[in-house]
């Protein structure tokens, strides 16, 4: 097939976005780029038939995560400080990436219909089950809510845990003798961003 696959330009844009995020010092623009990164991922998810994943990624990755990062930046430094690049992280990343690529050599090619994960009998169980036991067309919903419903309970617990953690960290109770408006004696102007914001 001589034609260029559709995914290729998206992948290249993806990679460029990621590299730009790595290079940019301004954190606001980096935050916006993470949103774009998510949206590009959504395109790929859709191309790879994962519409549910694409939908969720759009809502979460491009939506909530970006809003949260922006919200954090309103409260923290917005500029990353310049530092000389170090060698060790580079080596770690190269070794890890090389190991992963080495691991792909024995993998079935992308899209192969005879890959083990498509040949395993559970796939037919799911499709058949959705059609005959549930009469629900969306197979993903059936697996999510039923066959692997327990994973989804765990996922709900994870969200709840994050909620509890954020409450513990950011929402203060009534504490005697500790006025919340007391500024922190930051050694290098911790409340500057907030002054700007006011």
């Amino acid at each position, binding site marked *: 097939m001589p034609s260029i696959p559709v995914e290729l330009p998206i992948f290249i844009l993806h990679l460029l976005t990621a590299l730009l995020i790595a290079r940019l010092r301004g954190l606001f623009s980096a935050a916006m780029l993470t949103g774009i990164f998510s949206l590009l991922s959504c395109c790929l998810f859709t191309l790879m038939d994962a519409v549910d994943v694409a*939908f969720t990624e759009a809502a979460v990755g491009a939506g909530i995560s970006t809003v949260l990062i922006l*919200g954090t930046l309103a409260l923290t430094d917005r500029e990353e400080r310049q530092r000389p690049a170090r060698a060790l992280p580079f080596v770690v990343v190269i070794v890890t990436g090389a190991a992963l690529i080495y691991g792909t050599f024995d993998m079935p090619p992308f899209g192969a219909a005879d890959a083990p994960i498509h040949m395993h009998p559970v796939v037919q169980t799911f499709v058949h089950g959705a059609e005959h036991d549930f009469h629900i067309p969306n197979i993903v919903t059936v697996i999510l809510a*039923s066959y692997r419903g*327990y994973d*989804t*309970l765990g996922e709900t617990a994870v969200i709840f845990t*994050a909620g509890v953690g954020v409450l513990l960290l950011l*929402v203060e109770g009534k504490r005697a003798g500790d006025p919340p408006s007391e500024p922190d004696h930051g050694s290098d102007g911790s409340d500057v961003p907030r002054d700007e914001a006011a």
Partner: protein
Amino acid sequence: MIDPTPMRMRDKIVLRVVSKLLIPFILLFGLYVQFHGDFGPGGGFQAGVIFAAGFILYGLIFGLDEVETVVPHRFVEIGSALGVLIYGGVGVVNMMLGANFLDYSVLAHDPAHGRHYGILAIEAGVGLTVFATMMLIFYAFADRGRRPGGAA
């Protein structure tokens, strides 16, 4: 984080009008996603996020106090916990009816119906927890932003 922005955003008439028009549709779409997840993509989780996004947009444009009157702090804390309990509660009810944990088929005489009810119930639980937790996290970050200035 939000406090500084609405000051400015509140004055932008285009933003106000457009968002007033958009938000009902976002919420409607959230409900659609919640209940249509059986047929198309979507489900409790996506619905919860979209629903929360509607309220967060409202909060960004019209100020935090406005949203807080509709979705109070106490509600998001309770909702977040309640969603998990609904989900787990369905499983516990299944157990009491003699089936395994999260085996919904015993919820009705016809196993297929039972499974339908079960899926509806747990999706509601997921939606509630996700919506409430997203709001809770949004409030937490937003409140942190206006803390040093006292009450906004």
